[in-house]
């Protein structure tokens, strides 16, 4: 495809590499929204992002946060979200590299928001085959920050995290910070007063071709970083099989095209929000009847 002209999609910050992926002095060619870009690492914490191919090259804004290098093609982008957990000294902060997923970015966000698939796709880890019920939860559009939240979520999990010693009723909070980023807070097995923070930031290469980055700020004194990454990647690879086999890959916003139930309240709120912001990139165009 050519570079998207959708101003809504263009005015978002998206990741284009993870910090550490590129050696100092080296560069990585990649793509966002159909635009070829080059990510050069000019110093330990310094990156330079430029477009190439097509129009005359231009330099793009860049910032490094949450283990990722972010850039944007927009002139007036929505700010990156504030996630204070990443500043807490005792947290284990890690990304999980990046995983290619051939679908639209919104399918990835919806899968992350969804508790009803735990028992079927993450059986004996995030869900049990005989405890499939999704109890009612609430969703909110927080207008001050323009984010979608799902609160009071609970689900029985046989092995909720690398640190979990057995089954637990996990409490979740979900937070959609932008069309291309989502995170959750889930209660920590060892300390009921704290929440693990797990994010997904999506780099849309093209409408149905994405790279997913999973920065995490975890409370876990025991596990190695490699174990924590391994757990998260195993979960995500189980999801990828699903994500790449949903049809169509583009997200339909017409509520009669895909039929939700109460457990999909967060997906319903997300789709309404996308519709209201009139985003077009990666969205299924209305089909003629």
């Amino acid at each position, binding site marked *: 495809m050519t570079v998207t002209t959708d101003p809504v999609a263009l005015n978002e910050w998206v990741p284009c590499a993870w910090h550490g992926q590129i050696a100092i002095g080296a560069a990585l060619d990649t793509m966002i929204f159909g635009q070829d870009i080059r990510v050069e690492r000019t110093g330990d914490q310094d990156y330079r992002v430029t477009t190439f191919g097509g129009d005359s090259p231009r330099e793009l804004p860049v910032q490094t946060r949450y283990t990722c290098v972010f850039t944007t093609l927009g002139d007036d982008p929505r700010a990156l979200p504030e996630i204070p957990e990443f500043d807490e000294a005792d947290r284990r902060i890690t990304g999980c590299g990046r995983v290619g997923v051939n679908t639209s970015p919104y399918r990835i966000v919806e899968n992350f928001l969804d508790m*009803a698939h735990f028992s*079927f796709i993450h059986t004996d880890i995030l869900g049990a085959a005989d405890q*499939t019920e*999704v109890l009612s939860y609430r969703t909110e559009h927080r207008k001050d920050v323009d984010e979608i939240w799902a609160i009071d979520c609970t689900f029985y999990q046989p092995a909720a995290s690398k640190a979990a010693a057995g089954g637990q009723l996990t409490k979740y909070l979900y937070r959609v910070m932008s069309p291309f980023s989502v995170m959750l807070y889930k209660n920590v097995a060892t300390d009921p007063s704290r929440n693990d923070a797990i994010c997904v930031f999506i780099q849309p290469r093209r409408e149905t071709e994405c790279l997913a980055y999973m920065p995490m700020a975890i409370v876990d004194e025991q596990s190695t970083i490699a174990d924590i990454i391994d757990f998260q990647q195993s979960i995500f690879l189980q999801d990828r099989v699903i994500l790449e*086999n949903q049809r169509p890959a583009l997200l339909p916003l017409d509520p009669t095209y*895909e*039929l939700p*139930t109460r457990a999909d309240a967060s997906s319903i709120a997300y789709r309404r929000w996308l519709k209201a912001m009139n985003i077009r990139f990666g969205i299924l165009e209305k089909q003629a009847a």
Partner: protein
Amino acid sequence: MSVAQGRWTGVALDHQIQPASSNPVVLNGQALAVWRGEDGPVRVWEDRCPHRGMRLSFGFVRGNTLRCIYHGWAYGADGQCAEIPAHPALAPPKTICANSYPAETRYGIVWTTLGDGASGPPDLGPDEGWEGVRSLFVAASAEAALTALARFDFGAGATTRMLAGDIVEVSFGPELRMLVVVQAMDDERAALHAAAKGARATEERAALAKRLERLRADIEQA
């Protein structure tokens, strides 16, 4: 697509659609889930769960319901959603229904149509005694496959006859007949499904399958 939407086409061999299985099939660019319950007939549905679009050919069968692998939603033989595991006490609304196509097994072959199915699958005589030989998948259009099939030399004494637009009968004398049905998958891929009948059908099955492999090489070289 060149194949008329209303026409019935063979899309699988009956014996290949195992009990309690769901299988992916592409017909004229349309993705289908061809599945069978623990017993009973083969069903042909759109390969898409009405909930979140997951392919139903990835689904699993329990009893005579097909369950979507993503959230376990169960669909009965009529396509109606019968159970949503996230809400065990909820009776699913009637609006949640898998999109189904007409399906019939005849001559050892599973037939379907993307049209209304009013005409029924082709009538090529009595249904008894046919057994599946094999299915072949070729990197060629259905037209190219049919052209090569009509010209193919199946050996001494074999005569080839076009029965309908996409069905060929190969006769090897009074004791052996073979049907070959060509299914358009898309513009560049086709499937061939062959079934045989006659006193020598069982003993010749392996030899027929070998000849069909040579036919595939012919089609793909054309």
